[in-house]
């Protein structure tokens, strides 16, 4: 068997692709890579299609041993990776051979790292996607996070030339993130004063979040009503319950909910938000629907060619 034998699963490592599409109407969450930018670069370095089964590592701790020959690419948060004990850089490809070991330390900047292989990992698809949803016990390896002893099969591969991501493309995960938001949904449930507060506040992410969504702390913004008639929730929706703190709903959000939403953060900024570590600062900025659509088009044209 060719692939990776997991020695340590780390805090929360899981198989993810671009997400589970078309089954939200029966209650299945979208799931998929939290940061599609880093995820996309990894596929690009390997020459993979965008939607390829990849390991997503949250915070760090993953280690594995190679069986056979595997070419990997690393992207996302720098977790102090070592190959056979020697430090290596993110955003590069590495040809690994039988017996090589790779270990992730823990992220000092950013939150999620991605490790892909040529052709992707050969885990089973579940409802059309490789993505793991731990809360729904679906996809990936038995619907759970990776654990010591798991084996991730992939086809044997070695790339003739090493590939790097150009320096100017490497994201900086320490900057204050500006979340561009399309107003909509229940915008009318927030008065002008509340909206002004919302857009003028520098929010702190205190680490109250997971793959479902991130709660942000700062000035309280209180909607005119406590709840609304339950309705579907889209990616990036900013829900503000009566406690007044915005929650940005991300890849593993519930499909339906009843809290007022001021609008939705554009996908490319949700990817940046995913990488914000506890203590990181974010602020919201308004963007028109046309601009938001154009920005998303540019992103997906770049990666899906």
């Amino acid at each position: 068997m060719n692939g990776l034998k997991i020695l340590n699963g780390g805090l929360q490592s899981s198989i993810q692709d671009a997400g589970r599409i078309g089954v939200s109407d029966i209650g299945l969450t979208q799931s998929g890579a939290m940061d599609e930018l880093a995820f996309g670069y990894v596929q690009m370095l390997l020459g993979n299609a965008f939607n390829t089964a990849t390991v997503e590592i949250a915070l760090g701790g993953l280690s594995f041993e190679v069986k056979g020959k595997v070419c990997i690419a690393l992207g996302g948060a720098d977790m102090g990776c070592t190959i056979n004990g020697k430090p290596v850089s993110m955003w590069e490809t590495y040809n690994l051979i039988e017996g090589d070991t790779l270990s992730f330390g823990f992220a000092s900047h950013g939150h999620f790292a991605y490790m892909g292989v040529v052709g992707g990992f050969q885990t089973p698809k579940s409802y059309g996607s490789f993505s793991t949803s731990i809360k729904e016990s679906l996809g990936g390896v038995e619907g759970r996070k990776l654990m010591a002893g798991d084996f991730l099969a992939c086809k044997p591969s070695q790339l003739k030339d090493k590939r790097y991501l150009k320096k100017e493309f490497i994201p900086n995960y320490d900057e204050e993130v500006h979340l561009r938001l399309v107003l909509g949904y229940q915008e009318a449930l927030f008065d002008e004063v509340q909206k002004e507060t919302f857009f003028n506040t520098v929010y702190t992410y205190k680490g109250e979040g997971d793959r479902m969504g991130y709660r942000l702390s700062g000035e309280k913004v209180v909607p005119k009503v406590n709840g609304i008639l339950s309705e579907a929730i889209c990616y990036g929706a900013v829900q503000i319950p009566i406690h007044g703190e915005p929650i940005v709903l991300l890849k593993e959000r519930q499909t339906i909910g009843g809290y007022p939403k001021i609008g939705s953060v554009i996908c490319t900024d949700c990817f940046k938000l995913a990488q914000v570590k506890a203590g990181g600062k974010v602020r919201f900025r308004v963007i028109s629907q046309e601009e938001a659509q154009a920005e998303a088009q540019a992103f997906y044209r770049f990666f899906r060619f």
Partner: protein
Amino acid sequence: MNFTFQVASFNTFMIYFGHRIDPQVSKEVQKAYRALKNARLIGVLEIIPSYASLMVSYDVLTQNYDSLCKRVEEIIMMARPIDEAEQKTVSIPSYYHPEVGLDLETVAEEKNLSIDAIIALHVNQSYNVYAVGFAPGFAYLGELNEALASPRLANPRKSIPKGSVSIADRQTAVYPTQSPGGWKILGRTPIAMFDTAYEGLSLLHVGDLVRFEAISRAEFLKLGGIL
């Protein structure tokens, strides 16, 4: 029936048919949902119905907001009404007893009714499936008889057993898997709400009618129920 479009995000919009729980509004949602699903529009990623709205999200590389809204509007205008005779009725066997219905006694006390009267109120009517979501196969059913309407628990339970038949305000639902939750539990069904063997994976779909059927402890166990 009127409906309005509202932008929700860079690739998503809502279609609102009303803003309250109403079987007529729900029928309009179902009619539009069915027509849009059947239209199989290229680049439409999700169509998610709820009580009074539909959410549509699309691939920005193959669709754009203006032209998709126009096409969707045409499809909804042309949609065939829901024929009540076509509505599927699904029967859900349920074992109502305090050993599985963890809030049955509390609700009976709160309403000043006997446990049997509570059960009768729950089984003696059909429910509409207004939405499926929150968790896979979780169907929001309504409307519960007003005499049975009861608020959610002040402190939600960390773990509600799989198959729990529960109520909240004027809604009722079955928990498809063990999960946290704040709805009050009256009983338990031995049948699965979500299974790969089901057509469309979920036992219930928006537009179905549901009836609960009281069964004994022996029947519950015979049907594979777990206490």
